[in-house]
């Protein structure tokens, strides 16, 4: 492990922490443009975070220590996820830990804590949101795993770094299975990040909200951490998607120059991805909560199909 490697890893982490709110802001701005609203400034998430960090925390009467610990666990998990997803380089100190299955586990940990915390206070909305979150997660996780298996079969490894290395640095080959996996992954990401067809981050309508229902009781720095964690989650998923499906441009060495070269490309890809996300959110209507299982079932099915296609079309006998 070289000094440059450690520096590079730190750089990637700091970049993630800084870029994540910007990505959220960018998506919000694109959404506003597409919906003919006047857009909030690009820096709005930073202002919000700054404001929240400077406010006092108000705790509910029955809140246990779990309620207070949860934001930190969630934030930590998401930061870890961002650090191990190879966004800039495949040869960073954390890369050996970047196992796709472990990543799913990290996301699962965050989900567990935020759901428990939501139920902790004992309000109706909290437990409702927590239950819905678990329902979505319960359906999204297998789909995500199937996507990962499909991609992992191509690289013969579940290590994200190895997958990226296989996909990005070989001859150009078209994998039809990746098309299936890509669609499935997009659907899972929408559900996991509380995006439009499944949830709407912009409303507090009690009948439909999932994510917002869970965090109603949070305030001050706790809320800031959770909001930041949500941004990081979006960033982590985006990077994961880019790593699986558009891996070109990710550096393979740990020297800082290569990293620096990878940064503008990453920002460009994220900008395009964010715009597409806003587009999806604009052209789709939020579906009833009971349709969410169907939506995620379809995602799961597509991922399975991808796996099957991979077996039939792409394996040489």
């Amino acid at each position, binding site marked *: 492990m070289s000094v440059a490697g450690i520096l590079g890893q730190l750089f990637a982490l700091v970049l993630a922490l800084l870029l994540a709110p910007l990505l959220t802001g960018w998506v919000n701005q694109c959404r506003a443009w597409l919906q003919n609203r006047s857009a909030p400034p690009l820096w709005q998430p930073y202002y919000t975070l700054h404001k929240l960090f400077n406010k006092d925390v108000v705790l509910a009467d029955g809140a246990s220590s779990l309620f207070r610990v949860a934001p930190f666990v969630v934030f930590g998990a998401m930061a870890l996820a961002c650090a191990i997803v190879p966004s800039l380089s495949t040869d960073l100190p954390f890369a050996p830990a970047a196992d796709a299955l472990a990543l799913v586990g990290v996301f699962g940990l965050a989900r567990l804590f935020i759901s428990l915390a939501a139920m902790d206070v004992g309000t109706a909305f909290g437990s409702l949101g927590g239950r819905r979150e678990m329902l979505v997660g319960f359906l999204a996780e297998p789909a995500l795993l199937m996507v990962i298996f499909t991609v992992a079969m191509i690289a013969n490894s579940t290590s994200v770094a190895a997958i990226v290395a296989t996909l990005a640095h*070989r*001859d150009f*080959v*078209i*994998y*039809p*299975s990746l*098309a*299936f996996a890509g*669609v499935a992954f997009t659907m899972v990401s929408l559900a996991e990040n509380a995006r439009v067809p499944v949830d709407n981050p912009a409303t507090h309508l009690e009948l439909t909200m999932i994510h917002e229902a869970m965090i109603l009781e949070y305030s001050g720095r706790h809320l800031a951490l959770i909001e930041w964690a949500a941004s990081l989650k979006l960033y982590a998923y985006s990077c994961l998607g880019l790593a699986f499906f558009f891996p070109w441009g990710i550096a393979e060495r740990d020297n800082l120059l290569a990293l620096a070269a990878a940064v503008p490309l990453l920002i460009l890809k994220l900008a395009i991805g964010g715009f597409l996300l806003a587009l999806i959110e604009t052209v789709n209507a939020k579906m009833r909560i009971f349709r969410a*299982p*169907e939506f995620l*079932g*379809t995602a799961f*099915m*597509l991922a*399975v*199909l991808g796996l*099957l*296609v991979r*077996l*039939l*079309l*792409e394996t*040489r*006998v």
Partner: protein
Amino acid sequence: MSDVPLSAQLINLCAAAILLLAFAMLAQRRVLQLIDLFALQGFALFLSTLIVAVKTGQTHLYFSAALTLALKVAVLPLILRRLVQRLHVKGEVEPLINIPTTMLVGIMLVVVAFNVALPIAQLSATITRGTLGIALATVMLAFLMMITRKKAITQVVGFLAMENGLFLAATSATYGMPMVVELGIALDVLIGVIILGVFFFQIRDQFDSLDIHHLERLKDH
């Protein structure tokens, strides 16, 4: 995988797209969108045929690609759309079985189809042998769609999607059937759809609906 020529990869991609669209059609509840998906599937079929034509240089494949484009992408969807408008088919197609269940059955069918096609794929000399399994799966999915839908018009779309699957098998897996045969098949399909169009009007006149549950009176007592 990397030593497979680009053309074969592209054909595989088209085949995968056709399968994906077959599933999308299975999941689609609205008639007009269903027709759009069908047209899209036709386009993927056209692309794959075109690639095969370029690859093998057989003139008659260019012809059949053009035929696919004209028929499956332009004419048939147009006829179907006109029919839907003139017959005032209501937007939603209620399936007989709910969609998630249909999807699960669909997955099983794909597994079966792939399993059946696998030993054949291993024998084939053509690189795009895998498409045979996809074609079989598409045929089976279209069949499933015909079974699970109530509206006459969706049954016809299913029938045509089935034809798409067969065409995929004929062009991609085997690099083209003899010209006479392809022409004949295309002609049959076109005439079939025209006859069905006439039929719809008669069915609607007789039953005031295009729901095929009206067509269940003939039974053995």
